[in-house]
């Protein structure tokens, strides 16, 4: 095993859903040891799935990324192979403990004492309800770095508002800034870009705090109000209001700087959207020169040389007319073939890639992007690769998506060095388990 940037750093993952687990996944990819305490008596929805033991009908009725379990079967351990869970829980360890009971909380305290970072993104009040506060953590380990990711911050009237990424993005303006310009926003499919941003910045913040601790010897508390953090993504809209009082709105797929055309156009498709077999190409023209090159690349039809469209201002004014021409052309074209022809002419164009097609993409294959992981509960599959390539300290998937309680022996015996008697007592008390208690639905 080669050296990793964060080798020797231990992170306790008290995270739920996406934003927190994404942060700790990035830390794990960089070599930190990430340990997740899990409770056999409490199922956190939307982390290891919707329910511990979902009815077979429910997984079929759920959208693919939530219900697409291996072979479309619930199986014995659905919590171990929920698609959203497995894609966030590589390079992490799992052990079980019931933090609602004093002896369980004491186990956490002992783990904190030998860790560097505690990361949580639960609803405000959840940690306090368990007795886990910054003061409590500091008593266990004065140098601990504690990251909290409340939706709107720990104070003010929104402190206790319940939110997923999509809700706080509505508040930050994203929902009214995206989508079709001719439709009301109720057709906006939920997106979670704020989870991405807060997750990445959370990992950045942890490393910044570790850097600070190396210099000063001090740990600290970090608060990432996820709504506030998301603001950067809407810089143009925020600055336009700040500088000019303009309230921007949805603009479908047009360019925010008015470079035209910019759109998504139909291509030859093997089927329809009803089976996710419709195909589209996205095209962005940046300059007048690119517009000219685009026209030549598609055989110089008369509309492509229309003098009204030669300059960007004319193309922007007539964008609907141009879009119709482009769509009529692209509808007869193969998306990948057209991408290659347009890119050869210096024009940004890519298929709108449905996820299953990633695995056939020659560029991703040439870069060896995918990684096969073998998890005992589900078997061997190809997963998406890491976000960066480090030749000197490579990101490796050393631990496949972690199974519930997989590291009970490691955490209790090797890290905490509990006695056999204590181990057996905790096991008898239900703390140490490898599946959810039968009482958990």
């Amino acid at each position, binding site marked *: 095993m080669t050296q990793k940037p964060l080798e020797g750093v231990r992170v306790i993952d008290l995270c739920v859903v996406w934003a927190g687990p994404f942060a700790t996944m990035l830390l794990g990819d960089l070599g930190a040891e990430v340990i997740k305490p899990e409770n056999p008596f409490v199922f956190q929805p939307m982390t290891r799935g919707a329910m511990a033991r979902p009815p077979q009908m429910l997984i079929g009725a759920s959208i693919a990324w939530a219900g697409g379990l291996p072979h479309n079967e619930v199986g014995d351990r659905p919590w171990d192979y929920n698609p959203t869970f497995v*894609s966030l829980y590589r390079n992490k360890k799992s052990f079980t403990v019931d933090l609602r009971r004093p002896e369980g909380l004491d186990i956490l305290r002992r783990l904190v004492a030998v860790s560097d970072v505690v990361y949580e993104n639960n*609803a405000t009040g959840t940690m306090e309800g368990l007795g886990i506060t910054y003061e409590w953590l500091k008593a266990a380990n004065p140098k601990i770095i504690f990251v909290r990711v409340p939706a709107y911050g720990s104070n003010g009237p929104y402190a206790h508002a319940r939110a997923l990424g999509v809700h706080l993005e509505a508040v930050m303006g994203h929902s009214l*800034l995206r989508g079709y310009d001719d439709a009301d926003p109720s057709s906006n499919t939920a997106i979670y870009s704020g989870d991405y941003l807060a997750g990445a910045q959370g990992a950045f913040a942890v490393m910044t705090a570790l850097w600070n601790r190396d210099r000063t010897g*001090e740990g600290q508390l970090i608060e990432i109000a996820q709504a506030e953090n998301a603001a950067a993504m809407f810089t143009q809209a925020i*600055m336009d209001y700040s*500088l*000019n009082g303009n309230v921007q709105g949805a603009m479908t*797929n047009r360019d925010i700087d008015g470079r035209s055309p910019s759109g998504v156009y*139909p291509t030859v498709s093997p089927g329809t959207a009803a089976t996710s077999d419709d195909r589209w190409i996205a095209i962005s023209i940046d300059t007048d020169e690119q517009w000219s090159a685009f026209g030549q690349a598609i055989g110089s039809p008369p509309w492509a040389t229309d003098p009204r469209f030669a300059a960007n201002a004319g193309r922007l004014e007539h964008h609907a007319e141009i879009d119709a021409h482009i769509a009529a052309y692209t509808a007869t074209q193969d998306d990948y073939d057209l991408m290659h022809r347009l890119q050869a002419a210096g024009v940004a164009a890519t298929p709108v*890639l449905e996820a299953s097609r990633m695995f056939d993409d020659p560029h991703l294959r040439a870069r060896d992007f995918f990684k096969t992981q073998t998890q005992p509960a589900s078997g061997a599959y190809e997963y998406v690769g890491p976000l960066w390539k480090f030749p000197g300290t490579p990101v490796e998937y050393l631990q496949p998506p972690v199974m519930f309680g997989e590291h009970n022996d490691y955490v209790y015996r090797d890290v905490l060095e509990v006695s056999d008697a204590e181990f057996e007592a905790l096991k008898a008390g239900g703390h140490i388990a490898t599946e959810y208690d039968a009482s958990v639905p």
Partner: protein
Amino acid sequence: MQALDNVRVLDLTQHIAGPYATRLFADFGADVIKVEKPGGDVTRRMGPFKAGQAHPEKSGLYFYLNCNKRSVVLDLRTEEGKLALAALAKTADIVVESYAPATKERLGIGYEWFKALKPSLPVVSISNFGQDGPYRDFKLTDLTLYAFAGEMYSMGETDREPVKMAGTAALFESGAASAVGIMGALFASKRHGIGQHVDISLAETHFGGVDRRHATAIAFQFSGRKTLRVASHGGGMPGGIYPCADGYVDFTNAGLRPDRVAAMLNHADWLNDPRYSDPMQRMDPAVIEEWNGNFIGWCIERTKREVWQEARRAKVMCGPMFTMEDLFTDESFRNRGFWTRTSHPEMGELTIPGRPLIMEKNGWELRRAAPLLGQHTKELLAESGLDSTAITAASGGAA
């Protein structure tokens, strides 16, 4: 003191993703030296502009992305420019660059060039599709990035075209991911003495990133199922976006907690009605339609802020759809210190979002507004030992 004030970043990035990543370093104290070509970063020519007037010192986008940095103009097509770059590189802890790979080769400033100057120096390259592979030289924009590598395919209505996120959100996501990569390279250098060339592909930051592409990909591997493009908002009641008196409110997945929804609506009796409480009956479209009809009536009598207040009282997941005006005028954001004020020689006083996160010790500070083009060319190059003739030559006559 700020956490990163012992770090110097030589920043050869432009546009959005790279500058956003290096701004995070600058915000937490790093000395970020932004190298601009003569004429400046392309975002100096992108809006929104103050008063709508295109001007290289009046772009709100450039401003936001480059606060806390110093700007030096170098013409890297000349030997003098490269000599100045070499002098700066020797003082840096890390180099971040976003040239197209072919441009970097043409300029002769690839990783090997930096390595020859200082073997321990990590260099992070941020490019469209990475430093190798068949698409290495392809163009990429925010739209095509999200289309190809993000989850755009499943965003929108089934019978319409897929639709993107707002503005250039996808590029900002890539920038945040890049900041983590840069920090990883810095730790590898500091803790293990490893200099290396880190390769960040904007496309791969989305192919491998959160917001579903990671999950839709493995869901297909597991089950053969694809993710449909449907305006779905999770199961249950309520589930989705509803009109209210003055706009819209988002109740995605709120129906996961029927007990709280019943409390919000003062209808505890619903918990005893199997149509609303049984997990399977709750999925019957006829039941949902009837329930939604009543719920819309409740929403439409209330403003988005009133609906949200009721939802907060009962701990129901909800988000009112704010406009930028709603956000700027919101007292709670203001009172928490979300906004910060600064001033700029060309733009005057302005309000921008402040800290992205709160570190209790040695954290975020706004030390300086975004630099004027080449504002620090003379001071930085003089510090690096260049005389005034060399400085003028290096900057292509700009200083």
